[in-house]
């Protein structure tokens, strides 16, 4: 038994506050709590703090290329510096890297770490688990070389991997731009960048960007990068299919209408060996749901989100949630909400007041994000890209046709579709296919999908981990 040589002290951690996720939300909350002398343990699946947006290379690794970074990443570096300052030996923050949280109760977080089953006991919990890539299945999306925007970021920024020579970037929303610049930074030629939203629809995002100094600066920086590298953003275009012998060699691209439906007769073929698909993000809500938080459906924020009050508190008094788990909003929202949650917890622990500036900053960031992301809400017509024989559930190899047959016989709920064909019952437990599955099986709008069912373990862990879980 790998855990046998660890003492009970090692397998059970204690903290005033336990935080799930070391992205901007988790880091901001942790740094503020630590500055007030509160002992914090942060659990993160990654190898270093930063989360997906401020992902850092593993310690000791260096990029040979120069990955260009937008101005907002200065905030990220400051946040990481402040967080890591408190996370040094003897500091108030303990960061547990490579920790998979698999079960939770108020005051208890069970996690697997280095093959050992461990438990964090804490007073308050702050959830900042982030989001998953939204996957839109299209013919050929399972070919090697076709990856999500998030996976590309992990490859390029997290491990310094150059994924190919000629990349096509497709999708919708603000994530497209950092995907392009990361690839350019890694020396990959970006042959096209296709935004499925129309230019008209995207104009709705303009006020939110134009009146927000940081976002405006950010947008200008990205535009400059694209212009400098002669990458043109094509509005109202997307990928129809990917083809190749054993891996992607070419993509069929074309125009889509205002709902995202492919327009016949607009197809063109483009040679490429990497396709980065970033159709937005879906909030990661399973830890919050397991803890008893309420959820609501907000299409603008990517789907089902945790419900929080004006100070980021969930329905469970000791559990707070910040950033993407409350709805997609980006790093600025996450860090502002992280600070707010920390301030609310400090009022309970230390009797300090919650400064009105902290509250108003979190609200303003969220408002601006909602207004911008409204222009990129998921386009339901993109679900028409998948053909009857296109695989929609990769774990169980379920085609769209089989999912449709299951819905016709077993019922049109998410659960019925899973039961009827096993889609979404594999290792990902519908984290990948879930957001599209019900829409593609029933033809209903993508955002009408059922609340996911949360079962333990929240992420796959070994049988040994469950068996040896400390109490």
């Amino acid at each position, binding site marked *: 038994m790998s855990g046998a040589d660890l003492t009970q002290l090692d397998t059970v951690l204690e903290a005033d506050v336990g935080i799930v996720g070391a992205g901007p939300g988790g880091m901001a909350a942790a740094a503020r709590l630590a500055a007030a002398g509160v002992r914090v343990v942060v659990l993160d699946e990654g190898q270093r703090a930063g989360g997906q947006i401020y992902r850092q290379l593993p310690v000791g690794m260096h990029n040979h290329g120069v990955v260009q970074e937008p101005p907002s990443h200065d905030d990220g570096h400051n946040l990481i510096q402040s967080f890591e300052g408190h996370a040094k030996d003897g500091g108030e923050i303990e960061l547990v890297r490579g920790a998979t949280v698999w079960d939770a109760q108020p005051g208890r977080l069970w996690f697997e770490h280095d093959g050992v089953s461990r438990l964090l006991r804490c007073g308050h919990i702050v959830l900042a688990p982030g989001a998953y890539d939204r996957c839109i299945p299209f013919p050929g999306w399972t070919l090697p070389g076709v990856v999500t925007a998030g996976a590309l970021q992990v490859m390029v920024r997290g491990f310094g991997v150059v994924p190919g020579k000629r990349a096509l970037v497709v999708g919708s929303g603000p994530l497209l731009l950092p995907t392009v610049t990361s690839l350019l930074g890694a020396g990959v030629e970006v042959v096209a960048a296709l935004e499925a939203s129309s230019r008209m629809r995207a104009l709705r995002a303009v006020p939110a960007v134009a009146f927000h100094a940081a976002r405006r600066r950010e947008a200008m920086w990205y535009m400059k990068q694209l212009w400098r590298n002669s990458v043109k953003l094509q509005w109202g275009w997307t990928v129809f299919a990917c083809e190749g012998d054993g891996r992607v060699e070419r993509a069929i691209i074309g125009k889509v209408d205002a709902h995202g439906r492919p327009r016949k007769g607009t197809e063109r073929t483009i040679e490429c060996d990497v396709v980065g698909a970033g159709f937005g993000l879906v909030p990661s809500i399973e830890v919050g749901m397991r803890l008893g938080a309420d959820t609501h459906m907000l299409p603008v924020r990517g789907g089902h989100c945790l419900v929080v009050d004006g100070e980021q508190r969930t329905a469970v008094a000791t559990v707070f949630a910040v950033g993407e788990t409350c709805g997609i909003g980006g790093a600025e929202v996450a860090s502002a909400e992280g600070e707010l949650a920390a301030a609310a917890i400090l009022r309970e622990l230390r009797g300090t007041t919650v400064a009105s500036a902290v509250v108003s900053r979190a609200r303003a960031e969220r408002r601006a994000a909602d207004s911008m992301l409204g222009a990129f809400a998921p386009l339901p017509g993109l679900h028409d890209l998948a053909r009857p024989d296109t695989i929609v559930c990769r*774990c*169980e190899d379920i085609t769209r046709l089989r999912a449709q047959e*299951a819905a016709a*016989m*077993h*019922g*049109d*709920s998410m*659960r*019925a579709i899973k*039961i*009827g*064909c*096993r889609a979404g*019952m*594999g*290792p990902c*437990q519908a984290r990948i296919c879930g957001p599209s599955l019900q829409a593609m099986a029933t033809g209903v709008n993508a955002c009408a999908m059922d609340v996911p069912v949360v*079962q*333990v*373990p929240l992420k*796959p*862990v*070994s*049988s*040994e981990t*469950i*068996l040896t*879980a400390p109490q």
Partner: protein
Amino acid sequence: MTETADIVVIGGGIIGSSVVYQLAQLLDPSTRIVLCDRGPIAGATSSSCMGHLMVTPGNAQEYALTKTSVDLWRGLHEQLGGFDYNPTGALYLAESEEDIEMVPVLHQQFLDQGDQAEILDQKQLRDLEPGLAHDIPGALFYAGDGVVLPMLAAGAMLRGAQQRNPNVVVRPNCAVTGFQRDGDRIAAVVTEKSVIQTNTVVNACGVWTPGIGEMLGQPRVPIYPRAGNLAITGHHVSPIRTQLLEISYLRFAHAASDVDPTQTDRDAGGHAVNMQPQTNGGCLIGSTRQFRGMSKQVNRELLKRSLLRAHRYVPGVAQAPIIRSWVGLRPYSIDNHPLIGPWDPVPGFWIAAGHEGLGISMAPITGLLIAQQIAGITPSIDPTPYLPGRFAL
């Protein structure tokens, strides 16, 4: 809306689906059969159980029921397919002295029924299943058992029924809310979506069966939910190819319980490991038993006990990733036999329920017995021991 049906089947689990399939085979294709379920088809016990096809040789009556049914499963696989039928056989394992003594007893029981089984020594055991621990003192292999995916099987049977009889209607998300009577007889089933005029109703609602009877003013038939905790691994990691059972499983899972099923807070629960290889290379691990009402919360302590036993027999499974754990509610009948047949106090009302942990095994024979009796055909096996009338006052 008012409509008519020759037969209404309530409950779209594996039992209700099998009843519909067998009715469609035996009756004229003009017969209108409506299946209603308040949730998804196969959405309750049939999708939260194991998929064991199990022959139990304890006595001639039980053997006839289970063997006939498991044979019918092979036929369904050949005719319908699509539900991962896997004739793995069953490997009964024994560790305690009490269990080791059961090995030759079970062996003799199979022989007494004219069937075959094989007591394995250490080497034979290792040759059959290299993934097993090397110090298992007792083992018996029975080739006749198998594994299916029950929820896919329910769908396959209903598709098969519709192929043979276009007048078979399947209605998920359509709860039954009451009945209309004409004297003693049933006149109509009232659902959320319509009133269905019919004289023949089959109640196949598993743990919810007593509640349907109550809508007709009948006393509750003694069927109680018995919870089981299950866990499943990811794909391509199963260290075993054969279905494994602790031999004590027979004693504890398929015998009448000495715990009062109505005392939902008194049952400490029991466990005996049952491991089933899946066709995707995963491994399904059960099985526990506990009376505690309708709660579907996983009892982590009981689950741990069955994982511990699984690790003891198959050490490699300890490092396999678990992707999900859950609870299924088995319909336990108080005398440990299913209720299959007419409910005499209400003419036209039939019951097919109470199979506890053998519902998947017994689904084909249950459907056949109901269909044969409704069609007025001589039943394939003697239905007397299973007639629900034994509980009618």
